[in-house]
């Protein structure tokens, strides 16, 4: 549920980057952090183990500036991808306004992707939310790897994208696709607050 402050005209939204372990969720946030001017971002918090895996979550507050007269702020979170961190994954999902599912394009990671996506559905349901109402986009990361190691976006669509969501090929480590993904989820999330939203409550 986006937080809207009508007095100071401020909107705050929570976006969670979800996906299997080492698919590049933290890389997305790090790239954003590195690109955005100092005054438009807050401190990036990473609760990581020494092996570079996210232990609990990464957190990055972003200031999008003024939209329709509202100062718009996004809080980007990642979840730990490893299967055994499901409890914390579920906690971070709480109150999410939108989800970016970061898939690992490597052929051998396909099962992990599918499993993580199913896990997302289960966790969202446990928060009492119908996944079909939750703004979501997909990102097919690591498309920079050699062809023979990865699946093409069309193949990944076939395997993961049965809801025909927007999907973006990406190389999160170096930037391609990161911006497009963030832009798409931002639009999805904000659309729910706009006059254009179909069937608003």
């Amino acid at each position, binding site marked *: 549920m986006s937080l809207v402050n009508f007095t100071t005209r401020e909107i705050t939204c929570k976006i969670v980057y979800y996906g299997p372990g080492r698919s590049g969720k933290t890389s997305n946030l790090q790239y954003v952090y590195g690109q955005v001017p100092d005054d438009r971002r807050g401190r990036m918090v990473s609760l990581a183990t020494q092996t570079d895996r996210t232990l609990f979550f990464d957190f990055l507050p972003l200031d999008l500036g003024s939209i*329709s007269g509202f100062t718009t702020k996004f809080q980007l979170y990642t979840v730990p991808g490893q299967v055994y961190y499901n409890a914390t994954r579920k906690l*971070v999902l709480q109150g999410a306004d939108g989800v970016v599912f970061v898939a690992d394009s490597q052929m051998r990671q396909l099962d992990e992707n599918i499993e993580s996506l199913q896990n997302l559905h289960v966790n969202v349901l446990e928060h009492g939310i119908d996944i079909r109402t939750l703004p979501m986009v997909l990102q097919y990361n690591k498309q920079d790897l050699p062809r023979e190691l990865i699946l093409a976006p069309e193949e990944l669509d076939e395997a993961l994208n049965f809801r025909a969501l927007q999907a973006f090929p990406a190389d999160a480590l170096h930037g391609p696709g990161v911006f497009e993904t963030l832009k798409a989820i931002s*639009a999805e999330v904000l659309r729910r*607050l706009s006059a254009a939203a179909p069937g608003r409550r």
Partner: protein
Amino acid sequence: MSTTTVVESWTEGPLVRFVAQASARLVVVMTPAGQVLAQHGFTRAVDLMSASALGAAIMASSGEIAKQMGEPSFGTLYHAGKKHGIHLAPCETPRGRLIVLTVFGKETSIGLVQVFFDEFVAALKQAAPARQQTGPVLAADFERELNNSLASLFRR
């Protein structure tokens, strides 16, 4: 410098009173998802955004441990440091469940913070309006502005 930010005005009166009574350095009222609903005090004490994200995470994870142990909830968490203490506790209001993070120094004590926190919770309960329905917030053509914002964000 002391600052106040209040997203929903009904929180302000009880919040300011609580900070003064308990001699707290900083009090942050947040949603269980870690969004700041109101804060008052010396923000230099912590980075506000990350503190509330982390505070909400602590509450959520300790609540989860409680659940696994068959406890209804652990309620209040308190950590004492050398110079500062934090008090983290949930608060049920008609507006839903909220979480309150209190940062305090040695000029007060956890005992005093708890006494006044109970009053604060009662005051919040009384002041909270029921959940309100909201109309559209953004104009239908918000996407153009969003694109401009994001473009400037990424310096494109």
